[in-house]
């Protein structure tokens, strides 16, 4: 994950100081990208310890089309709790837009099934896109999508994915975003009988919170280890049928955890 280390130093060197919504203050750069060749390993940050559990459950929850925190809490994942209302609802966040984008004539568009169908039927298509940025529903979402659009591409029997993220908390959030979409790319590739190719993440407002700078500097003193491998233990019937136990991360060598406060 040299790409990630490079991004940390890029922001420390070039980032402009800004105040933000949360009041903590950030150093930020605009418009960056990182590319990971998934055939060379699973892009899980090695210069600190990351727990994949919440990421796997969150992705499965997105893919179930759910927007209530119940399922996450049942599996011990609390990352969405602070945004939920008293019933655990978040409004039409990711899961809804991916699996059931509402139209004014009462239909619901399942973008995930459609994109998988299209990858199989017309792999050269340039329209293999899923968008979560549903302008008319942004106001009713507890949190507006950060990773808001992704596109697939097939070349030489490999499936690549590029994701656009409007805002990236580089120390805490971004390693999870990368792992989550790398996982999704593996799953969609498996469903389409393709090998995973590249995952590219594009970030717009790319920032480090001021209270994460020391942690980032500490992380930069550490040398990355070789990347782990992802193993998927079976091929489920559809993209909706994966379970937590299907995934195994093999040979994850990492430096110790680095604690840091979340900006809310």
């Amino acid at each position, binding site marked *: 994950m040299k790409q990630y280390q490079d991004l940390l130093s890029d922001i420390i060197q070039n980032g402009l100081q800004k105040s933000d919504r949360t009041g903590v203050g950030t150093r930020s750069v605009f418009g960056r990208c990182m590319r990971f060749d998934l055939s060379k390993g699973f892009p899980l940050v090695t210069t600190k310890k990351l727990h994949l559990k919440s990421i796997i459950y969150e992705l499965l929850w997105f893919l179930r089309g759910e927007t209530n925190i119940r399922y996450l809490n049942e599996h011990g994942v609390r990352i969405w709790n602070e945004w939920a209302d008293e019933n655990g609802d978040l409004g039409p966040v990711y899961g809804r837009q991916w699996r059931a984008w509402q139209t004014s004539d009462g239909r619901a568009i399942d973008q995930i099934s459609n994109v998988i169908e299209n990858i199989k039927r017309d792999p050269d298509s340039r329209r293999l896109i899923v968008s979560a940025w549903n302008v*008319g529903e942004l106001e009713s979402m507890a949190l507006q999508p950060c990773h808001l659009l992704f596109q697939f591409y097939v070349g030489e029997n490999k499936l690549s994915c590029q994701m656009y993220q409007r805002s990236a908390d580089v120390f805490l959030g971004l390693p999870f975003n990368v792992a989550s979409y790398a996982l999704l790319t593996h799953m969609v590739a498996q469903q389409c009988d393709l090998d995973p190719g590249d995952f590219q993440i594009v970030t717009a407002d790319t920032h480090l919170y001021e209270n994460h700078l020391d942690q980032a500097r500490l992380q930069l003193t550490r040398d990355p280890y070789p990347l782990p491998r992802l193993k998927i233990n079976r091929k489920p019937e559809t993209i909706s049928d994966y379970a937590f136990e299907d995934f195994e991360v093999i040979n994850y060598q990492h430096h110790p955890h680095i604690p840091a406060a979340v900006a809310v």
Partner: protein
Amino acid sequence: MKQYHDLLKSILANGTEHHDRTGVGTISHFGYQTRFDLREGFPIVTTKKIPFRWIAEELFWFLSGDTNEANLRARGVDIWAEWADEEHTRRFRREPGDLGPVYGYLWRSFGGDYPRRNGVDQIASLISEIKTNPNSRRLIVTGWDPRQADKVDLPPCHTLFQFKVDGRVLHCQLYQRSADAFLGVPFNISSYALLMHLIAHVCGLEVGEFVYTLGDYVLICHIQNGISSN
């Protein structure tokens, strides 16, 4: 425009052959990012002539919310003509000239019931947000409406753009899902550079960087010879 030449070279160096919707062979690659600092000049390709007036008229037409090709052609620009003849518009049960919910509609009435203008005016919201909440990380305009993507011949290629304000300086990033590197890209670059100037002007800001991010970017094979002389 060294950036443009580097982009062309990147396709030749990394691209693979494909056969696309139009039946023509292409060389394509996936995922690219480049940037132009508008403070150093207006990005327009200089190694062949680009008709700036076409770019400007098309952009004004988008911004007006108009989706009737006849109005653009009346300004002497026929780049949308092939999508607007009866053969094309009949497929969607529309009158000749009516392109359906393309850019102008998506920008100015997203999510509406075309042709009714009852959707969200993203351009008006964008300008108002830049003025009142410049630190926002939500200064976004999208052209991707999954319910409309199958109702037009050409769903938006330049799919989504985002602005960022740093002090007095306005930056912009465009995500383009599909790019014809030889014919289209020079237009796209200059069109968004012009859009940045317009938005900066109405918001009382200065132009900064234009970050240009591509999904599937292609060279169509029969024009490959154009590159060596470009």
